[in-house]
Structure formats: structure tokens, C-alpha cells
């Protein structure tokens, strides 16, 4: 028994045949006669029922209109449609999707939405770079968190590769993206080795909470909402030439070696050369339709990752500026002051 209220335009399923029976009724057959049902009518009503069946077969009336067009009681209507549906003979004729947009339109919306959100956040790290108050420890701390992101990236992306509802071109592009993101942590390790932070120490270190939140978000999207993962790639991968220039300048002023700066710049160049920020558009363009709610949820994900990134910049400044060092808690005691600085100012990045 089906819920006919759920049908917008109930119709006889294409492929169902109907014809008169010997005693003036109507017989319906489906699937080469393996499913059939027969209705008998009072002699006076047979013709009107035949007309109704023609209307039902056409599928042109809404559920309410069809009910009104039925030449019998509402109970008889329900029984007749239920009997047909029991045999699988009723189909939905309303073809039009509700609202929604193409992936290209979704990208344009997300991009505009991202611009609006960016105008609402501030980066304490960029501010410290601009006014020259940034410390050596904060610059190295930034690189450590960058390492965590590159190190966790394959794990965060991998669950999306198991999905089977994205279509082959998208899957192939995600696989390619995954391959290009592998081993990027090795680039960052060269940088950190130049300031005396070896890989072994990094592997023991915990990321800052915002770094974790960003990578956890991407990873969970990859499992459960790959479209949000795809949507958040552009705010994660956009080149930031002005930031990089300032970063370079302050590193030089604070006497950080060229071996520290060069790999960071070159990693950024790799992302730019591979046009990583265009990955979102390239992937979204393969979706002919996305529901309005889906795009709205993707927009929340984009806004959140932008806010988390600003929060990460605030955490780099507060943790590494308050005496916090590499977050290897197994080997060193926990610097409570740095922990307090970190957790007491978590939203300083929201303007």
C-alpha cells in the first residue's frame, strides 16, 4: 500500500496495458502479463471508468485533480489505485525537479559568499606580519601548522575516493588531486629541518585546535558530504602572494635561514602551478544539478573553513607568542600559560 499523498501526478506506469474484459470490466497487465489486476463495474458506470483510466494513463492531472475526476467514491478511488499500485502499476508523472542549480552556478554563489565572509574576518597573524610585531617563534609555528595540514591532507581526502555517487569524471579528478597532494609534508619538513625541527619531532606533535578543526572538517566532509569537501578546496588552496611576500620579508628581518623560507614559497608555487584553487570549479562543473539545500550547506562549509583559517592565524599568534613551542606533550610539560592564551582568545579573528 502506498502513500498516494506523496504522488504529485499519479499515472499509469508506462508499459502497463489495459483493455476491456468480457464482462465489461477493465484488465491491467504489466511485465508480460506476470502482474495483472481486473476491475468490474456496474454496467452504467463502465464508460466513465474507461475515460478515467485514459486520464490516469496520460498522467496529466495533479493528485487532487485526479481524485476529483474519479467517477466513484473516495474510498473506491483509494482501493482502485492501491490495487494497481500493489502490482507496481502506478508511477509518478511529475518530471520537473524542484529549484536547485547547476554546479557552475553553485560555484559562483559559493565564491561570492566566500568574499562576503572574508570581509567579516581578520587575521591576527597577517596583522602581526604587517606591523612587524611577529616573532621568530610564530613564523616557525606557522610552518609547523602548515606541515600538519599537508601531513593530514591525504587522510582527509581519502574517504571521498570511496564514494560512488559523484560520477566517474569527478572521482578521477579527486584521485588525481589526492595524488598531487601526497608527500607535500616532505616539502615542509625541509623547511622545518632548517630551523632544527626534525620530522620525528613533528610526528609526535599535536596540531593547534583550529588546524585540527579544519582537517577534521575536510575529512568528515570527505566521508559524509563530498560536495562540501569539493566546495572548500578553493578557500583552502587559493594563492596568497601578498601574505607570502610579507612572510618572506619578516623571515629575513628575524634572521631565519633561506632554507626555511624557500620550501614554503615553493609549496605555494606548486599549488599555484597546479591551479589548485580552480579545483573546486573544475569539479563542481561536472554536477548538472545541485539542490538549493545542498548548496546552502556547502556555503556554510565554505564560510566555516574561512573562519577556521582566521582562527588558526589567531592561534598561531597566541600559542607560539605566549611561550608555546612544538606541541609534543609526551616529551615536554604542558605550557599552561600558552594554553590559556590559546583558549581564552579563540574568536579574536572574528571582526
Amino acid at each position, binding site marked *: *500500500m*502506498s*502513500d498516494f499523498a*506523496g*504522488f*504529485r501526478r499519479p499515472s499509469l*506506469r*508506462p*508499459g502497463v496495458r489495459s483493455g476491456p474484459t468480457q464482462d465489461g470490466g477493465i484488465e491491467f497487465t504489466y*511485465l508480460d502479463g*506476470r*502482474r495483472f489486476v481486473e476491475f468490474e463495474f456496474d454496467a452504467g458506470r463502465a464508460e466513465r471508468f474507461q475515460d478515467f483510466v485514459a486520464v490516469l494513463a496520460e498522467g496529466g492531472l495533479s493528485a487532487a485533480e485526479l481524485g476529483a475526476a474519479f467517477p466513484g467514491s473516495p474510498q473506491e478511488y483509494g482501493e482502485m489505485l492501491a490495487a494497481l499500485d*500493489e502490482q*507496481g502499476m502506478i*508511477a*509518478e*508523472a*511529475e*518530471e520537473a*525537479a*524542484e*529549484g*536547485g*542549480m*547547476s554546479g*557552475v*552556478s553553485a*560555484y*559562483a*554563489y*559559493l*565564491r*561570492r559568499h*566566500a*568574499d*562576503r565572509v572574508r570581509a567579516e574576518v581578520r587575521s591576527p597573524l597577517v596583522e602581526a606580519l604587517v606591523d612587524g610585531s611577529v616573532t621568530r617563534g610564530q613564523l616557525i609555528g606557522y610552518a609547523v601548522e602548515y606541515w600538519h595540514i599537508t601531513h593530514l591532507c591525504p587522510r582527509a581526502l581519502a574517504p571521498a575516493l*570511496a*564514494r*560512488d*555517487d559523484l*560520477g566517474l569524471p569527478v572521482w578521477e579528478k579527486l584521485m588525481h588531486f589526492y595524488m598531487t597532494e601526497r608527500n607535500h609534508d616532505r616539502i615542509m619538513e625541509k623547511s622545518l629541518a632548517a630551523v632544527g625541527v626534525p620530522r620525528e619531532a613533528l610526528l609526535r606533535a599535536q596540531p593547534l585546535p583550529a588546524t585540527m578543526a579544519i582537517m577534521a572538517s575536510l575529512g568528515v566532509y570527505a566521508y*559524509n*558530504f563530498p*560536495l*562540501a569537501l569539493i566546495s572548500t578546496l578553493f578557500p583552502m588552496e587559493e594563492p596568497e602572494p601578498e601574505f607570502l611576500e610579507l612572510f618572506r620579508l619578516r623571515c629575513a628581518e628575524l634572521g631565519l635561514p633561506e632554507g626555511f623560507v624557500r620550501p614554503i614559497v615553493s609549496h605555494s608555487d606548486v599549488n599555484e602551478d597546479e*591551479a589548485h584553487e*580552480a579545483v573546486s*570549479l*573544475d569539479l*563542481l562543473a*561536472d*554536477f*548538472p*544539478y*545541485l*539542490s*538549493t*539545500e*545542498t548548496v546552502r*550547506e556547502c556555503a556554510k562549509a565554505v564560510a566555516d573553513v574561512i573562519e577556521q583559517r582566521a582562527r588558526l592565524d589567531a592561534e598561531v599568534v597566541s600559542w607560539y607568542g605566549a611561550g608555546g613551542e612544538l606541541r609534543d606533550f609526551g616529551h615536554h610539560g604542558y605550557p599552561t600559560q600558552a594554553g590559556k592564551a590559546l583558549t581564552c582568545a579563540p574568536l579574536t579573528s572574528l571582526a
Partner: protein
Amino acid sequence: MPVNFLPVKPFLRATVRIGEKGEAELHTPGGVLEVEAPEGMGQRDFLRLLRLLDGSRTIDDLERETGLDGEAVREVVEPAVVWGLVDDGAVPAASSGPAVLSRLEDVLNRLLEDLVFAGPFWREVLERPEALHRNVFFGFGLENWFFLFRENEFDSAVLALAESAELRAMLNDFYQEEHRHDDIVLRAFQPLGVTRDDLLRARPLPTTTALIKTLSWWARTDPLFFVATIGVLEGRLDSDSDGPDGRIAYDSFLAACDRIGLDPAFVEPMRAHARVNAGHDHGSVSRELFARVPGVDAETERRWHDKAHLFVEAYAAFFNGILEHYSDPRRPLLRTGDL
């Protein structure tokens, strides 16, 4: 990077104005962008093209109306798309959720007739239940218990469905309604001397595991396709069949049990489970859920039609595996290890 992202009908989300020095300006809520015509394109053509990007013209229309070649048009449109300034004015290509489910039902209906009802298990149960060893009926109960016992594995995987709050809430309701259904059926095994502890030590037939794991995988990797299968899994076969006493038997299996006079202590808990599902109208779950799916694209629908074959193959093997294994009374009802 090859360009795959040209809108069908580009729609510029900015107002085109001419600046003080005659330069083209795009005014958006976020600010003003000064834009230049690509090399070789006159300013008049450039402005005219920008103003025609109103979401009603295809790239071909734009070429025709401006007299520009396609490459020139793309040279203007592409970067604007990358900046997020261009939407698609064309209606996105998709069908309503219920229409897509209806067409999928057609594929499923045919496969159910071809593979499930025409298969050895259901043919025997429907046509000659007297000729079957009773273990086949008990085996059906046991393998159904394994399925219900592990149902949380697939139902739970869609509880966090991200794309629709309403679907997510309904799937959570469904999960709650299904929770502990294995315990309803459990009582059926008392007359067989099979306890819950015995069942926890036992493993299902490989054909049962195949169905459970395949569904669990789809629930994780193609959740809406999994949702589409629920209607079949929860649907009752021949729900109006009458039992010998004139009561509704609830499904063909129970009607066959009644026909051969199987111990009511086994049959009634099975019927109780069928009654609970009927009360929740679980056969309509896919339809109720798909009524809330706003749209599905054609490629996804095609993929679901392909997968429907695999699903019904696994479903048919689930039934036929029961007949094959439990027909031989020398085989134990439960397959257990030593631990």
C-alpha cells in the same frame, strides 16, 4: 586545465557601467571591478557582449548576436566564471526524486519477477511448500534474523545524511523503528531450542553476508541508492494473502507456513514482525523519502539503474541460498565456531 565549466546560458552577476575614462566597470555588491577587453576585441564589442550575458542566451546565441567568434566569447566568459561572477541562466537538467524512483521501481519490478519470484526459493515456497523440509522455513527465519541483527550496519550509515535535514530526520525515525526488530523474531527460535547466545555464536550464510555488506557499502558510498532499496527490502510479498483461518497472513512466506501447519510458536513471532512493519508502512519508506528529494541528474539515474541489477541479484541469492543450504537436513541449523 581543460575548461569544462562554461555555463549553458551565462548570466553576469554584475552591472556593467562605463567609467569616467570610458573603461568598462563591473559593479557588484562587493565592489567595482575594472575590466579590459581581450586583445583584438574592440571596446564596443566587449561592452555589448557583457550586456548580453543576461542568462537568456547560449554561447552560440552570443556568437551570432555579437558577430564575435566562439573563442573570443569564451575568452571573456571563462575568467568571469572563475571569479564567481557568472551564474548559469539555464534550468539545471534534473528530474524530480519521485519520478526517478518511479522509473527505478520499473527496473526493480521486472528484476524481482525475473530473478526473485521466478527463483527456486519463492517458486517452491509459493507452489509446493509441503514438499520443502521444515528447516527451509526455519532457515528463512534464521537468515532474516541475521539480516535484522546487522541492519544497524547499513541503516546507521545514512543517519548523518548531509544534504537534507528533512531526509536525515526521517532516516533517524526509520532507524528507531527498526531498532531491536531482531529481538521480535528471536522468540520464533524458542521451539527450535535456539537461544540468543547460540545466535551470537553463529554466522550467516555467505549469501546473507553478501546482501548485508553490499547494502552497508552503498549506504556509505551512494546513500540515496541505498535509500531506494529500502522499499524493496521492507516491502511485503503478496501482502493480502489470506491465511487458512481467513486472517491476513501478512506475506507469502507466512501464508505458506500457515498452509503446511508449521508450529505457531515459530510462525507467530515472524508474523508479529511483519505486522509491526506493516503498521509503520515500511514498504513505502523509499517513496516517502524520495518525495523529499528535490532532483536527480540523468547520469546518477543511469548509474542507479545499473546498480539495481546487482542489488536484485544479491537479493535473489539471499533467498535461493536459504533453499540450497537448509534443504539438506543433515546440515546444522546454526553454523558456529569453537569460541
